[in-house]
């Protein structure tokens, strides 16, 4: 019964939103925005409670079993301390909340992001080995683009930049658009399967 109701709601809202997209009536846009923004925020707010409870539960269980205690305690401390700071002293300039955000959270995020530079280098090393003709073409194209983006090109000529732009705007863009067409068609058929009820995995599966 619950699943049937969910499927009916999904089908009705899917059809309504599809029709609203093609309407120029301002009330249609208003309705579309209300469904996609307001209703979504209500669902997300409740889901955040579910997420927080799940996070607490998973970490408390692990701590009680003595598994990976240190960073789990640090995670839980963050979960409790940040809302307390925001509640008592606010989130404005000079608040303890903002200080912790700027001096603890932001540097940690920047650290993880910085790892990307090393991972790009290690992945490139594996990916650009000239083992076959396509891999060699890939290696040469990558080298060309890399050189055109360095100071070396500025001292030589703009020919390298022009060739590099041609690579990016024609062969690369053509391949990208072909993939995008496939993704668009895939999105269309997946959405339709969900709306008409052929695909019910999102409800937990079953027919």
């Amino acid at each position, binding site marked *: 019964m619950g699943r049937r109701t969910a499927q009916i709601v999904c089908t009705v809202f899917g059809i309504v939103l599809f029709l609203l*997209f*093609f309407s*120029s*009536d301002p*009330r249609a846009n*208003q*309705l579309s925005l*209300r469904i996609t923004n307001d209703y*979504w925020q209500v*669902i*997300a707010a409740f*889901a*955040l*409670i*579910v*997420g*927080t409870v*799940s*996070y607490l*539960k*998973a970490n408390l*269980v692990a701590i009680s079993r003595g598994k*990976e205690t240190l*960073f789990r305690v640090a995670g839980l401390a963050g979960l409790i301390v940040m809302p307390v700071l925001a509640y008592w002293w606010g989130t404005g300039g000079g608040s303890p909340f903002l200080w912790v955000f700027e001096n603890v959270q932001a540097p*940690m*995020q*920047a650290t*993880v*992001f910085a*790892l*990307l530079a090393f*991972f790009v280098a*290690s*992945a490139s090393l*594996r*990916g650009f080995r000239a083992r076959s003709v396509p891999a060699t073409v890939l290696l040469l194209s990558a080298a060309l683009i890399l050189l055109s983006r360095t100071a070396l090109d500025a001292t030589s000529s703009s020919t390298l930049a022009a060739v590099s732009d041609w690579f990016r705007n024609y062969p690369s863009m053509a391949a990208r658009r*072909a*993939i*995008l*067409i*496939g*993704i668009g*068609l*895939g999105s*269309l*058929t*997946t*959405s*339709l*399967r*969900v709306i*008409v009820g*052929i*695909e019910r*995995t*999102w*409800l*937990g*599966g*079953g027919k």
Partner: protein
Amino acid sequence: MQGTLLLIIVAITDPPHAWIDLAKLPTLLAAVVALGVVLYTTYSKRSRERFKPREISGLRAVEDAIGRATEMARPVLYTPGWGGDIQRPTTIASMNILSQIAEKTAQYDCTLYYPTHDPVIQSVAQEVIRESYVRSGFAERYREENIQFVSTSQFGYAAAVEGMITRTKPAAVFMLGTFEAESLILAETANETGAIQIAGTDSTIQLAFFIVACDYTLIGEELFAASGYLSGDKAILASVRAQDILKVGIVGFVVVAIVWGLVDPGSTWWRF
């Protein structure tokens, strides 16, 4: 709810504005044709019987990857990426694949970890995985605590999943969904632990990273076809056939537009 109902009633009974946006008319026509093709191929018995999908190496490797994890007594990790929410067709497609993978991990008694950045996705994933375990007849093997919401922050999520991969050392890592800058961080970390990686995303930029760093990558529509391919459901497979028919139609349209553009450079009818 009352406000929304009122809006619907007023919009139907008092229509002073144009109902159809004429600028979107060509898109509407194209959408209707596409929907017609999808519905026909899905519900036509003949179409269902005749269709055999081509081999997709990334999907053929799914069972091997889970089998390998079972033999090595190591877990499987599945993550849908940071970029998506449950509204995206990519996330729905990812859930469909998750269902099939969870069924296999249940049968093989292999631990499945599912970290995510979105509590809505977590709730749906819990339901999908639980149902898969029940369907396979091993409901007692389901572990709710392994399906975790980790962080809504992009690099908080990346760090949490990276840590999980480093600590649990999964033998197979599935990265199927919407990924952004975290894609390469996760793929390279999984590579360092020696895991088989099967990835797929709708982001063309991240696809390049996955192709370089992962063992198998589902490109473009392969991610959306995976559900039918893995389950063997004829109705879903028939809708995959519709994608191919539409693709042929689009290629035909592009060829006609190119020829038309060469003959009459001033024409713009094909731009919509």
